[in-house]
């Protein structure tokens, strides 16, 4: 809205007689006249109400103000009449003496009028004098008292310290905003904005109905009834569409009914909530790259990338005699045979301790917070199992169906099925999850530990492994009734059929789960047996959320009811219940089916065996390829290396490319976003580790990754302990099972940004101009000094901001890559104050650290303690300011300038 227009437009709006409306109404059906009249009267009423309410509020405020000002006045009086004696106060004295100090025309005037002491006449005289034209105003000459000069500070903007880069938030954008800049020479204000951006798309905004509008709608429609002409008139009046108004009226009516009928029902129980909804905040707020909530760098609502390869369920050696509590299925199974053996051990702690690994905690932590169901979405929003695995398991189902072998596994003490131990369990579980959470800080993608929670029973389940038995989880399903639980509408037909065919009556279920992961080949087997008497009824009592949690549990722990009950369902279901549920065939089928079907969270619909078969095939192909890749793994001839090399060498011409993880499910092909974008796949990508486009890291040892010999270094990347073979940080004394100390000389020196191993930088007055950055301790050549942090802004945004910065001759912009520019103007660290020099002692380098580009400042030569830091801003030749221009300044990368403006902005005239 134009500034000039606002008063007038608001004036018309507040005008109670809306002539336009009425005149338009007259042209239409006679009814519309009536409508208009009604609306008009309502409008008047509203305006009057508003007027009254404003008056009331103003009056209230008036009283308020009176109180305030009186108290202020009081305090003023106190101050005046207080401890200070008039005589000692020079100002008072001066005030008294001042009449004599007046000079000029007015002085004589005033003196005269003092004698007269007639205000009117004085005023008269004075104004006459003025009017009659002392065009020379009174000059009061008083020798000014000098204020000693104080040196001004070099200009800066109060800035926010950042220890890592941040992506610009929407509200920080200057695009579309008006900006003002006081020109230093012209004394005028420049408005820096683009006219085409001035247009605000107000029309697009869907305006919420405000109360007065509701009032008018309700009253009008109540009075005149709901008809098209009335709606139209209303729409016209409120400048909305008539359908909108109709909808609103219905809403209003409903609200009225509700309010009349009394309280609306209480909130739905947390447990009935949708798992999808519950997980929503997690998916939106948790950054899977930085492992923090509300990540400032990658932002919220990132694309969810699920690794194609998932860590297998966790396997721990399980003591069969170990029960997880009073309701442990082992105990209860036993009790079916040997009744009333009431010893229940609480040894759960031990097994759970061993269990402490990454995925566990992550999932348990996450899931225990969420409450919901819906399988497709649920599996979409969490990490899936490797789909091929599960499909293997489907195969397995058909092959091994051996009920007998299972029963042997359960020789456990029995106990009454009471919840007596539950509390204990809960506590243990909590402790475990907390501990594990602490311990594990790695990303899921890199996590190849397989977690088998299952009590590995000694049963002799046979299973067929594919190829090298990498993976196959097998299920022996043998329960008859195939109740197709409707929420798990993803039963795998194959397995179901086979189950049916086998022995529909048998209540024994054997489960052998064979988890697998790429890195580790594992053969774990779990065979559980269950007498599942009330299977059906039990099933029904499971709430959707519990079911989803159970599924998650299976993903994490495998078929281990103890772990699932303890970590995910504590307080909800006992181990025994979990076990029963688990052993019901449908659940199992659907469980794995569900997993198989949603490999990436996008294809939620393929629901059956066909699909799984496909996946089996895919899997085998994949495995073959895997073998090849492994051979290639450390060869430098791999394509990925090549392209990176190239990039690093000619990056002078071409800025680095921003990395965004791809969501490929198989090894990346032509459609891979990373490939298209010209970046390598990183550990955050969905693609399997064997992906050819992945950066493989280095396997330097002696070189410490400090030269171009190291592929990481050569590619301007930092080493990544998750990727590189020999690069890690050794902490501790080796007691925790890490490899023994390698000695300092072998430690990777290419992880300084990651580890924040920076030098102390001091801020001070520069020897050159403005502020400067100084080094506290001496460093040797090529030492990493610190990171240049700032806001990540788009190039478009940077151009906009740059307009002002250039005028102020001070810019903190730094080209980062093809998508982003770092701006340290408002947020940054002390290195932003390092000045430019054509003969610098530092250099800046854009380095890829864990998928993000960051700017490191390095020593170009040996720098002594206390020296000021300089580096070459490397302005683009055509953009460099005069002082930074030099013949060889052809570098295209750096673009930063801290020269403070010396000019003095002026006020608008």
């Amino acid at each position, binding site marked *: 809205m134009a500034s000039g227009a606002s008063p007038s437009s608001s004036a018309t709006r507040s005008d109670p007689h809306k002539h336009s409306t009425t005149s338009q109404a007259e042209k239409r059906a006679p009814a519309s006249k009536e409508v208009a009249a009604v609306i008009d009267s309502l409008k008047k009423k*509203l305006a009057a109400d508003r007027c009254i309410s404003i008056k009331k509020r103003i009056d209230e405020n008036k009283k308020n103000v009176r109180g305030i000002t009186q108290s202020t006045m009081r305090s003023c009086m106190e101050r005046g009449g207080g401890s200070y004696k008039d005589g000692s106060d020079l100002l*008072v004295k001066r*005030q008294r003496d001042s009449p004599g100090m007046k000079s000029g025309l007015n002085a004589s005037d005033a003196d005269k009028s003092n004698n007269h002491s007639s205000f009117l006449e004085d005023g008269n005289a004075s104004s006459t004098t003025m009017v009659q034209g002392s065009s020379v105003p009174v000059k009061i000459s008083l020798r000014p008292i000098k204020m000693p*000069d104080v040196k001004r*500070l070099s200009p800066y903007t109060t800035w926010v310290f950042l220890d890592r880069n941040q992506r610009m938030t929407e509200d920080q954008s200057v695009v579309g905003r008006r900006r003002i800049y006081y020109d230093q020479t012209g004394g005028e204000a420049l408005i820096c904005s683009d006219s085409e951006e001035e247009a605000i798309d107000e029309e697009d905004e869907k305006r919420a109905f405000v109360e007065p509008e509701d009032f008018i709608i309700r009253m009008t429609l109540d009075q005149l009834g709901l008809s098209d002409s009335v709606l139209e008139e209303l729409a016209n009046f409120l400048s909305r569409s008539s359908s909108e108004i109709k909808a609103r009226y219905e809403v209003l009516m409903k609200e009225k009914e509700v309010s009349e009928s009394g309280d609306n029902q209480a909130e739905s129980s947390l447990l009935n909530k949708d798992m999808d909804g519950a997980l929503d905040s997690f998916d939106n707020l948790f950054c899977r790259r930085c492992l923090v909530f509300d990540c400032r760098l990658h932002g919220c609502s990132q694309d969810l990338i699920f690794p194609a390869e998932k860590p297998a369920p966790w396997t721990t050696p399980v003591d069969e005699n170990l029960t997880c509590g009073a309701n442990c299925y082992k105990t209860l199974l036993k009790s079916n045979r040997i009744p009333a053996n009431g010893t229940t051990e609480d040894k759960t702690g031990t097994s759970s301790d061993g269990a402490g690994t990454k995925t566990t905690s992550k999932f348990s932590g996450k899931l225990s917070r969420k409450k919901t169901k819906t399988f497709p979405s649920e599996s979409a929003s969490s990490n899936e199992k490797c789909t091929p695995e599960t499909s293997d398991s489907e195969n397995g189902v058909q092959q091994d169906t051996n009920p007998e072998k299972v029963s042997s596994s359960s020789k456990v003490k029995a106990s009454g099925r009471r919840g007596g131990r539950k509390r204990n369990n809960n506590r243990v579980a909590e402790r475990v999850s907390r501990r594990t959470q602490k311990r594990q800080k790695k990303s899921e993608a890199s996590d190849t530990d397989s977690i088998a929670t299952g009590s590995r029973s000694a049963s002799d389940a046979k299973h067929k492994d594919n190829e090298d038995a990498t993976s196959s989880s097998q299920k022996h399903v043998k329960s008859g009734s195939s109740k197709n639980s409707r929420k798990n509408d993803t039963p795998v037909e194959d397995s179901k059929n086979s189950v049916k065919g086998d022995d529909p009556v048998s209540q024994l279920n054997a489960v052998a789960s064979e988890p697998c992961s790429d890195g580790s080949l594992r053969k774990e087997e779990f065979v559980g047996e269950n007498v599942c008497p009330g299977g059906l009824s039990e099933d029904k009592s499971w709430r959707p959320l519990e079911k989803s949690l159970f599924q998650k549990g299976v993903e994490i722990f495998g078929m281990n009811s103890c772990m699932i009950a303890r970590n995910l369902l504590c307080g909800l279901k006992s181990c025994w219940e979990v076990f029963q549920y688990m052993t019901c065939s449908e659940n199992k089928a659907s469980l794995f089916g569900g997993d198989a079907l949603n490999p990436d969270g996008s294809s939620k619909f393929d629901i059956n065996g066909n699909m799984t078969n496909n996946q089996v095939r895919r899997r085998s192909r994949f495995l073959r390829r895997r073998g090849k890749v492994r051979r290639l793994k450390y060869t430098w001839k791999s394509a990925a290396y090549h392209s990176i090399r190239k990039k690093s060498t000619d990056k002078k011409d071409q800025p680095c490319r921003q990395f965004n993880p791809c969501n490929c499910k198989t090894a990346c092909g032509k459609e891979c976003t990373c490939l298209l974008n010209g970046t390598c796949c990183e550990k955050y990508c969905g693609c399997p580790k064997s992906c050819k486009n992945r950066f493989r890291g280095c396997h330097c040892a002696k070189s410490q990754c400090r030269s171009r010999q190291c592929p990481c270094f050569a590619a301007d990347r930092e080493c990544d302990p998750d990727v590189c073979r020999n690069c890690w940080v050794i902490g501790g004394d080796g007691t925790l099972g890490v490899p023994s100390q390698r000695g300092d000389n072998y430690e990777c020196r290419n992880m300084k940004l990651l580890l924040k191993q920076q030098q102390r930088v001091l801020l001070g007055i520069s020897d050159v101009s403005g502020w400067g950055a100084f080094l506290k301790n001496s460093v040797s050549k090529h030492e990493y000094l610190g990171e240049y942090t700032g806001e990540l802004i788009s190039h478009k945004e940077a151009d906009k901001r740059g307009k002002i910065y250039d005028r102020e001759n001070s810019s903190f912009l730094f080209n980062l890559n093809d998508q982003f520019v770092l701006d340290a103007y408002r947020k940054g660290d002390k290195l932003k104050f390092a000045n430019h020099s054509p003969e610098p002692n530092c250099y800046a380098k854009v380095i890829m650290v864990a998928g993000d580009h960051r700017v490191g400042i390095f020593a170009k030569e040996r720098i002594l303690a206390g020296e000021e830091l300089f580096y070459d801003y490397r302005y683009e030749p055509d953009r460099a300011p005069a002082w930074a221009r030099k013949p060889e300044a052809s570098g295209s990368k750096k673009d930063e300038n801290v020269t403070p403006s010396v000019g*003095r902005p002026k006020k608008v005239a």
Partner: protein
Amino acid sequence: MSKITLGNESLVGSLTPSNKKSYKLTNKTQEGKIPLYSVAFNFIDARFFTCFVSAGGNGINLYNCLEDGSISSLYAFADEDKEESFNTASWACGVEGNPFVVSGGEKGIIRVIDVNNQKIHKSLVGHGDLVNEIRTQPLKPQLVLSASKDESVRLWNVETGICILIFTGTAGQRYEVVSVDFHPLDEHRFINFGLDTTIKIWSMKEFWTYVEKSFTWKDDPSKFPTKFVELPVFTASVHTDFVDCNRWVGDFILSKSVENEILLWEPILKENFPEEGTSDVLLKYPIPNCNLCFIKFSCDLFLNYLSIGNQEGKIYVWDLKSCPPVLVTVLSHNESNSLIRQTAMSTDGNTILAASEDGTIWRWDAIDKEQAVTVEAKGRRKGKAQLK
């Protein structure tokens, strides 16, 4: 500006003067040709209600308004550095009641002048750019807020010279902060306005211990643990354009942007959601020809009247107590035709000073109704109407 929705219209004042109160020009004084940016009466100490300070260029001048309509000069201060150009001046006082004048300008250095001793009490260094406005907390006149181009607002204790708090950060003002004002009653609260068109209300409640500490601080002021306040309690865009002056009126806010009008509005704070606060614009005071930045209005101590100059050298006086707004009078003079940056009203509203771009200070005094008539008649006789 939040779009005016139905039923939330504000009452707009009419530009026809009611002439409830009349003023006559009684004096004018000129120090030089340097534009004056600021003029302010002392509202701190009843003894000095007639004293005012003007700032412009590198000079700060103290005057006394005599009852007879004349102006006497009390003190003049000048910065040794000719580069300095003061933008703002405010009265304050020390813990013992000794009057201070606090002023700041282009250099970003805030000068605290001990008037009785005729010397600099402190020079407050810290702002990274020019200072736009300084305001004194009326109940604790040792506390002073300064709004700066460096996007921050600082709270100072002028007695000890300590920078207590810095209000800035991600949620702070995005460009220059132009105006700032203490809440009259809630000493923890103040507002600021910036060139990014937003208005923010800040609270220093959580940091009040630091404020108290600043009074007893004996060590070097630079060692004081200055705190950063990053989150305002309220943020809103009431205007679409730059806002350059604001005042609390009770719990309402008067604010002026370069849109030729002053708004009186109520901030509706939402606990814990500073970004979601809304505003309800109640009254509008149109000011013709007043769309330049850095024209400031002023009110009397009792907030009965508001006066503001415009580009043509006219002064508009509005009645703040009436609703809908009533324009009291428009002051104009044929020689006063350059931009008036700031006006100052005396505590009782009977004297209005106007600091103009050409370095002149104009003094207008109120006259009683019947006297006004006479004056007007006389004026007309001479063919030079002073009152419009």
